[in-house]
């Protein structure tokens, strides 16, 4: 079953063609890894899915529903803001810089969206939040403010916060790039667990170990195009494109 379908998507920032005719389909349970040099459009692609960026043209289906259809920066499909918000709630997103809410405690960070958006009862939301925080190993930190946590802990709270909305798909935008090397492992561990539990994931990452271990598919992007795709093993061991070969040579 197709969870995400992207058809003929283009995106321009001014003159800059950051997404150049992207077609991509992600099926339920897939862990799609997106790699490529910086500026290749991988974050923009991810952010287009939940409207943090608006595409210039093309179509995006989420869970088989057409959610974005644009030409020349104009909506062909009229998007109702309420519907867009509901769609965003189906897509959990984890950011490079965590973006936790600093004025809320760990527990409040995880409960605020279910209470505000899903209108779930506070006590029920807290119960569920505690379960999730236990899963990411932070049950002893529920009353701390984010500023008191390490980067790795903050990112794990951010994952729990996204999961609290019970998303169908999780999007990760370089989730370990802002972390000290010794904190990367704890975040990847949580993500691997999530993958094993069958979550559909799209992960922009430079963590090749992670891609090899849990990635079901990998795309390599360069200058706004998908230049190579396959299983992570195929692409790593036998890259066909010159740009891909150069990239792997430079990061390994």
């Amino acid at each position, binding site marked *: 079953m197709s969870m995400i379908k992207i058809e003929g998507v283009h995106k321009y920032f001014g003159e800059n063609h950051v997404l150049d005719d992207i077609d991509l389909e992600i099926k339920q349970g897939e862990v799609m890894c997106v790699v490529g040099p910086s500026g290749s459009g991988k974050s923009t692609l991810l952010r287009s899915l*939940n*409207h*943090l960026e608006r595409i210039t043209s093309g179509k995006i289906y989420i869970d088989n529903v057409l959610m974005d259809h644009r030409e020349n920066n104009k909506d062909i499909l009229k998007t109702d*803001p*309420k519907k867009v*918000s*509901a769609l*965003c*709630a189906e*897509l*959990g*997103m984890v*950011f490079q*810089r965590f*973006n*936790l*809410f*600093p*004025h*809320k405690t760990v527990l409040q960070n995880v409960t*605020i*969206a279910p209470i*505000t*958006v*899903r209108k779930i009862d506070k006590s029920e939301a807290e119960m569920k939040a505690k379960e999730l925080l236990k899963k990411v190993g932070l049950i002893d930190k529920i009353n701390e*403010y*984010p*500023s008191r946590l390490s980067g790795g802990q903050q990112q794990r709270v951010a994952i729990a*916060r*996204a999961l609290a*909305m019970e998303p169908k798909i999780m999007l990760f935008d370089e989730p370990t790039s802002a972390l000290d090397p010794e904190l990367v492992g704890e975040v990847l561990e949580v993500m691997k667990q999530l993958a094993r539990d069958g979550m559909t994931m799209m992960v922009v990452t430079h963590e090749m170990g992670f891609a090899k271990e849990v990635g079901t598919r990998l795309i390599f992007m360069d200058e706004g195009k998908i230049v190579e795709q396959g299983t992570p093993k195929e692409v790593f061991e036998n890259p066909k494109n010159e740009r891909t070969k150069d990239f792997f040579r430079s990061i390994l």
Partner: protein
Amino acid sequence: MTAVQAKAFLAGTGVTIELTLISIAIGLVFAMILALGRISKSKILNGITWVYIWVFRGTPLMLQLIIAYFGVPMVAKTLLGHYVNISMFNAAILGLTLNTAAYLAEIFRAGILSIDKGQMEAAKALGMTYRQAMLKIIIPQTYRRVIPPFANEFIMILKDTSLVMVIGLSELTRVSKIFAAGGEAKFYFIAGGVYLFLTTISTLIFDKMEKAAAKYE
């Protein structure tokens, strides 16, 4: 100082405090709306609020007070055909409120814009609407950041209430001037002392508020 003079001073101080608190309280709510208008994507809202702030920051408060008291009845006469009288106190509140709202709006706007854009993105990604994100995520975070400039504006308005003597309202400065007219300058200095006392208290309270608000940092 005689008992009568002391009583008049006390009453004048009361008027000064009332003017400050009421105009700041109403101005605060109004300023929040203006600030949201200034950052909104709607060109019309943006334009209206821009013009408002441009006018009220670009003309003297004293002139605004004069217009509120003397000008409003004249305008009413032209528009409605009869005078609409406005009390001195209400005119003073009107002038001070409209003026402080323009300044506070800019303070709030700067506060909102100072919040990292990742906060709005995270809120949106969690399915919050713009309104929910503003109310629950962005505005609460601006609170601590706007306390220092807000304290500045509060103290400014507290002192600028002295300008309402131009329309004849007996606040602290006017009371001191009336008594000093008898040849005794000490009344001016007493008024100055009262202002200093009030501004000092305000500063202490705002410092406390700022510290309390910083608990999550």
